[in-house]
């Protein structure tokens, strides 16, 4: 029973990781909390649903969702954050402008869906359940885990092993110094936001498939989970976010299975609170959170 819940937790955690990694990239590179990330995630789920309902295959829907979410994320950066960054007040101002963006995207989705909960057609994904060593795992769960794993590997390869990734890491470390070596930060921001959006879109499709309920508010709880995961793992740390996402997924499935409903969130967030007190900069964070520094 516990093993089964742990398995479910790993699958859920993989999807959280997709969502949180994009969130983390953006925060790492610009120190901006992008509150529209949940809306981008929701847009991905809607794109895949729209493709499938109109007769397209699921894989096409998946790719379109990633592409559209990526573009949407770049658009948010251009419209909401670029001007603010020049004024130097982006730490708080970005909160307002990204709330604005998320309201706009959510209203459009609400209009398209007519405020209904939409579902994928019954046979979109084959229902098949395997029994392995007493554990039940569905084909969908296998697919989710595999897709999450593959995307995380591709992203890590991109960030750590390619020239583009080196530029991203350089700008994350110090945008001005990167500029002196001939890196154009705005191009790097575009790539980062595209990647973050595409990962969120993929997570949206996977969540839409898993719970088979897509609606315009679906991004909000994930935004909260995303916050928790990137802080728990340590801001800007990719392995940290991965570890935190898996831990968070397992904690969530375990508490839902074994605790009275209603107490789940209390226990999860109490755990988060305590971890933060013991490790003030997250599980694998490098940045000294208690450092003395001037803030605007």
């Amino acid at each position, binding site marked *: 029973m516990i093993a089964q819940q742990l398995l479910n937790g790993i699958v859920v955690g993989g999807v959280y990781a997709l969502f949180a990694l994009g969130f983390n990239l953006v925060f790492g590179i610009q120190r901006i909390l992008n509150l529209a990330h949940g809306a981008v995630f929701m847009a991905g789920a809607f794109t895949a649903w729209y493709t499938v309902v109109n007769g397209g295959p699921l894989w096409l829907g998946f790719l379109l969702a990633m592409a559209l979410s990526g573009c949407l994320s770049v658009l948010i950066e251009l419209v909401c954050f670029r*001007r*603010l960054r020049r004024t130097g007040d982006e730490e708080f101002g970005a909160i307002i402008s990204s709330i604005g963006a998320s309201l*706009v995207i959510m209203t459009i989705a609400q209009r398209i869906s007519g405020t209904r909960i939409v579902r994928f057609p019954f046979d979109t994904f084959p229902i098949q359940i395997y029994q392995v060593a007493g554990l039940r795992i569905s084909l969908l769960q296998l697919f989710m885990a595999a897709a999450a794993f593959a995307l995380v590997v591709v992203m890590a390869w991109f960030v750590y092993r390619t020239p583009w990734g080196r530029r991203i890491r350089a700008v994350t470390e110090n945008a001005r110094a990167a500029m002196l070596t001939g890196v154009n930060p705005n191009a790097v921001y575009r790539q980062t936001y595209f990647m973050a959006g595409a990962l969120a879109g993929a997570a949206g499709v996977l969540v839409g498939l898993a719970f088979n309920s897509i609606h315009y508010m679906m991004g909000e709880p994930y935004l*909260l989970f995303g916050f928790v995961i990137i802080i728990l793992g340590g801001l800007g740390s990719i392995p940290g976010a991965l570890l935190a996402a898996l831990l968070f997924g397992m904690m969530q499935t375990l508490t839902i299975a074994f605790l009275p409903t209603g107490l789940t969130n*209390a226990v999860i967030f109490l755990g988060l609170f305590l971890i933060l007190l013991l490790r003030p900069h997250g599980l694998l964070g490098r940045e000294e959170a208690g450092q003395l520094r*001037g803030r605007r």
Partner: protein
Amino acid sequence: MASLYNAWGPILDLYLLQLGFAFSQYLVLRAGVFSLATAALAAIGAYTAGILAVKHGVHPALGILAGTGMGTAAALVLSWPLARLRGVYQAIATLAFVQIVLSLNIWAEGLTGGAMGLMNIPRVVGTPGLLAAAVAVTYIIWAIGRTRIGRTFDVIRENEAVAVSLGVSVPRWQALAFALSGAIAGLFGALEAFHSYALDPNIFGFSFLIATLSYVVFGGRKSVLGPLVGTAVLILLPELARPLAENRVLVYGLLLILVINFLPRGVADTLLDAWHRRRLARRSAAAAEALR
């Protein structure tokens, strides 16, 4: 006059209540603490007052006092662990605190009425009561801001290293900011309880927290005018946009993006800064003229 009040009275009441929560958020931000705990502290104040009134028949005045006290106490307790954290980490830790309070409110059904909410709270606070509380709080915050307390908060926010080098005990001053913020949140939470018949735990959730934060950031985080202006604009906008019907939220979102892009420090702060600069320029021009 009476019909004007009937149309706009509920919005005025809403404004006064939200103004209190905005000031609670403003105080912690002013002292350089990125806390989002106002939602939880308001919930604690509201439920303390509501439970005392409904289950124990306590007089509302005492209930409001108890709510304020509980808000202050909870904030003080919270400020002690939070002194270890900074910036976004504080924001997330307090977000966790909000979630804990929210889910305990839903879970403790016997005490709080659970997800159904707490019903039958006597409605004893009207517009005059809210107005008095809002004016008093505005005055107190304005007055505090002009004393040593306000200046110390400003130093801590602008540069913590400088504050420490000047002999300011940062955790102690931030605990003071927290306690004041908790008292205001508890007070207005209790007022909300006695203003609206019923309490529902989800009032004080994620959207409450985002709304309170945006009142302050939209208006301005430094001057006392900030929360006053920010709350007014953000509450009035949806009402004025009523003729737009279903495009209301769309327009609201676009306006948020537009305004913060062009007035990045918040409406009141950016305009005040521009005004100060112009006055300085005029003065120096006059001085140059006199010298010639």
